[in-house]
């Protein structure tokens, strides 16, 4: 009895095996264009059985004839192919058609209007390092971005002017939060610098138009900066510069990092050595400190906090307020505090969250006979939730609130003062969906609603972007949107009945990117409505009847392949713009707009010398300015602006520590640079408006710095 059972069991086991037998599977693997997928891996899931496709894409192998056979094909650059085979067959013929993998480069990417600098993404124009190494930029973010098309160089300002827009039409955002004072404190005609070091950021998106509904209160442009994550390692930095010095220390723990830094800048010794166009009484002194903290409780979550404080001041002989031909001592003192905290986390498979808050305080005191005391403060909070409803498709929803306080006391003479107090609670919400319709077509549609308590008015702006991948290397993009912004404080102080100013953007972009070469050309039309406008000397009677337009073409070519160890880009912008706003008597090209702007940036790595050198040439065509002594408005023209800057970084080892020696000089050939004239507000006894020439602070700017990083070495 017993042995029989065993026997039966054994036999049935063997029978099952023999019954299953072998099946031959053959066929062909083809890609989407019908070409043989040579070497594709063809196999049955969960078994050893399979083979590689031959040079004609054909394959043939045998496998055990199981009930369920799933044929799998893998091939680099393509999505895995899977197919359930009919059971019980001795031989089968299968044709496998592969679909290209949704790789980053094969997919459409929304690029209209935006220049990105990132190490992580592929379809970017710049690397973060480019911002630091661009000659003429002096490690200033705005300076480097000024070599991109769409910007107009306004040498006496140092700020970003985008596509015929005023500087305040470009707003800066750090980790999604609006920045109240992105530039250092300055007086008219003395160029400002960005407050934030480019080394703070791992990603920079410079949108010259058509940007996401997440960002508002900018008519022309958004500079979107994403700070670094956890510091990579513990390191101490020492910098010695011709204009001062700095110290920093970064400590890295398993899940946290903390950096503390401080710097002291003084232009005194420098201005006494190098001839200046300015008669400095007390050259710029600036001292600041910064704290950067990061904590990542797990892989998906990151808390970022940064805070800074800076005090700066200077005094100089400056054109008098009434008569600019006279020089009257002017002093400026500024204190600035900034704190920004943000947190992001992935909640489950489909949701992610970003939330942040920021505080800013800025106090400015200007003295020149008159006394001007200004305090700007803001607190804000913002939260954005993203729902990833399909692969590469996301729905973003967010809300923000900014409470701002602008308090300015102007004392012209005892008993003659003017006080401005503007309090605003700005609230906004947005929703935006970004989705793919196949790998070739990407679309983003957003809606933003905002309200300002100061204006007592709201706005709703639609935004739309499309990207169509026309070929392996080329893409067309399109963007459209409405952009609203509060009028400047200079207008609101007289009249708070004003409404939002509005710009409508239309952008068409073509981009060709192949390996290390990138070409893009973008045409745009921007229409301004509702700009603040008033009759001369009656700013309290302003209304939103101003309007204007900007249209133009921006061309960009970057090539990192043609010259060995060399890298260059060429930017050209053609701009045609006119506006009828403020006290303009009629539509006219504003003084910050130049028709042609050209930048050529070249960088070269000298391997043997461990040195990188760079040149930047810029040209801006004449800009208009108004001469009140002439009939007509804005009829005068500045001379064209030209500059050729040079920089070099020598990488070396000083006392066993990694060290960079950096030198830079602007206006190497000594081009004549002038930004027109400033005119007195009152005519003199002869009925003439006196004038003073607006020039750079010095003919050339020399800079030399030594940057030492003291950190871990390659020992074990």
């Amino acid at each position, binding site marked *: 009895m017993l042995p029989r059972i*065993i026997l039966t069991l054994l036999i049935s086991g063997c029978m099952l095996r023999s019954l299953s037998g072998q099946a031959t599977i053959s066929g062909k693997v083809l890609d989407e264009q019908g070409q043989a997928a040579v070497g594709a891996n063809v*196999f049955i899931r969960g078994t*050893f059985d399979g083979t590689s496709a031959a040079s004609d894409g054909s394959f043939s192998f045998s496998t055990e004839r199981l009930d369920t056979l799933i044929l799998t094909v893998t091939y680099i*650059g393509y999505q895995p192919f899977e197919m359930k085979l009919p059971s019980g067959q001795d031989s089968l013929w299968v044709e496998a058609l592969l679909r290209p993998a949704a790789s980053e480069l094969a997919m459409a990417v929304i690029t209209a209007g935006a220049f990105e600098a990132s190490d992580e993404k592929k379809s970017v124009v710049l690397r973060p390092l480019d911002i630091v190494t661009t000659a003429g930029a002096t490690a200033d973010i705005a300076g480097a971005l000024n070599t991109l098309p769409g910007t107009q160089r306004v040498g006496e300002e140092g700020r970003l002017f985008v596509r015929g827009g005023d500087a305040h039409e470009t707003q800066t955002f750090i980790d999604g939060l609006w920045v109240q004072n992105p530039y250092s404190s300055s007086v008219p005609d003395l160029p400002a610098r960005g407050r934030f070091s480019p080394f703070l950021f791992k990603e920079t998106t410079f949108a010259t138009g058509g940007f996401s509904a997440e960002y508002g209160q900018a008519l022309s442009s958004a500079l979107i900066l994403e700070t670094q994550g956890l510091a990579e390692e513990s390191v101490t930095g020492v910098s010695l510069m011709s204009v001062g010095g700095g110290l920093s220390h970064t400590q890295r723990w398993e899940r946290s990092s903390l950096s503390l830094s401080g710097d002291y800048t003084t232009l005194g010794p420098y201005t006494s050595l190098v001839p200046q166009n300015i008669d400095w009484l007390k050259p710029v002194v600036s001292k600041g400190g910064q704290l950067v903290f990061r904590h990542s409780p797990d892989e998906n979550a990151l808390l970022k906090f940064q805070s800074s404080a800076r005090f700066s001041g200077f005094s100089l002989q400056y054109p008098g307020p009434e008569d600019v031909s006279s020089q009257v001592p002017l002093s400026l003192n500024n204190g600035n505090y900034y704190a920004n905290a943000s947190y992001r986390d992935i909640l489950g498979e489909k949701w992610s969250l970003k939330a942040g808050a920021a505080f800013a305080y800025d106090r400015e005191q200007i003295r020149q006979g008159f006394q001007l005391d200004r305090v700007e403060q803001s607190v804000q909070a913002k939260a954005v939730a993203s729902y990833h409803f399909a692969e590469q498709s996301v729905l973003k929803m967010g809300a923000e609130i900014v409470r701002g306080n602008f308090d300015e006391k102007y004392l012209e003479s005892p008993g003659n003062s003017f006080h401005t107090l503007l309090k605003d609670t700005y609230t906004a919400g947005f929703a935006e969906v970004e989705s793919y319709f196949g790998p070739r077509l990407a679309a983003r549609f957003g809606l933003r609603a905002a309200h300002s308590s100061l204006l007592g008015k709201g706005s709703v702006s639609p935004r739309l972007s499309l990207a169509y991948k026309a070929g392996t290397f080329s893409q067309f993009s399109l963007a459209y949107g409405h952009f609203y912004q509060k009028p400047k404080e200079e207008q609101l102080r007289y009249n708070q009945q004003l409404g939002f100013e509005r710009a409508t953007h239309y952008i068409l972009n073509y981009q060709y990117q192949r390996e290390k070469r990138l070409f893009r050309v973008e045409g745009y039309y921007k229409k301004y409505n509702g700009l603040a406008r008033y009759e001369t000397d009656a700013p309290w009677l302003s209304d939103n009847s101003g309007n204007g337009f900007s249209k133009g073409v921006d061309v960009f070519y970057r090539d990192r392949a043609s010259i060995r160890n060399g890298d260059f880009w060429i930017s050209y912008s053609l701009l045609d713009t006119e506006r009828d706003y403020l006290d303009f008597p009629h539509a006219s090209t504003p003084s910050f707009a130049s028709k042609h702007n050209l930048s050529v940036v070249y960088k070269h790595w000298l391997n043997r010398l*461990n040195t990188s050198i760079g040149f930047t040439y810029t040209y801006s065509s004449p800009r208009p300015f108004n001469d009140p002594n002439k009939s007509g408005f804005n009829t005068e023209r500045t001379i064209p602006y030209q500059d050729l800057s040079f920089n070099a970084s020598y*990488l070396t080892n000083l006392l066993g520590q990694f060290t960079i020696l950096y030198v830079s000089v602007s206006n190497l050939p000594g081009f004549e640079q002038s930004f027109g004239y400033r005119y007195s507000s009152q005519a003199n006894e002869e009925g003439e408006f006196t004038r003073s020439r607006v020039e750079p602070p010095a003919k050339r700017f020399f800079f030399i710095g030594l940057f030492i990083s003291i950190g871990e070495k*390659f020992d074990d």
Partner: protein
Amino acid sequence: MKKMILIVSMFTFTFPAISQQTKYEKTLSQALAKLEDAEGREALAEAANTFERIGNAMPGEWLPFYYHAFTNMRLAMALMEEGQMGECQAYVSKAQESLDKAMAIEEENSEIWALQGLIFQGRIWEDPQARGAEFSMKSHQALDKAISIGPENPRAYYLKGQNVFFTPSFYGGGPEAALPLLEKAENLFETSGSGNALEPNWGRETNRELLNRARAAKSEEKN
């Protein structure tokens, strides 16, 4: 009786499992022999396919995924030498995918972390200027982890030596700085060996090559 049936049924059920294990070892050792003889990209791709199939059949074993990752890195290196940088990175990505699977099976494995160090080196090739700093650090960290888990793993020292060898001297790298690491690897290559023919044992020749270059650079410096 019942006991008997149990034994029998155990026998019939475990029999295919045993054969699966034997088949695995046999197929893997054949594939390794092929990899050893592989010359040119076609043969490497063929070997990579075999490792992928073995991994597909034996999803609980780390070695097939490890070798699949390793073979893809060799393909990536071959493409890099031909100057095909775009395609090269596709293989580096594929190597990372497979190594992730190996890592999911065995997290504390010195060989896996050593290969992770190599894959991070591969990330640098795409754009040394942009990626050099970040990924050379990541590579170092992975190799340090490999050494802390397996202080006798010659490949971890060899790859670390390679890292230092190609790091510019102003960052504290260069052939001379790499010398002690390459020498340590050389010694370990001589003495170590798990005895299991399926476990990784590559790197001896390439290490020696680099070691000779480092020694030559040092003596050149002296003269």
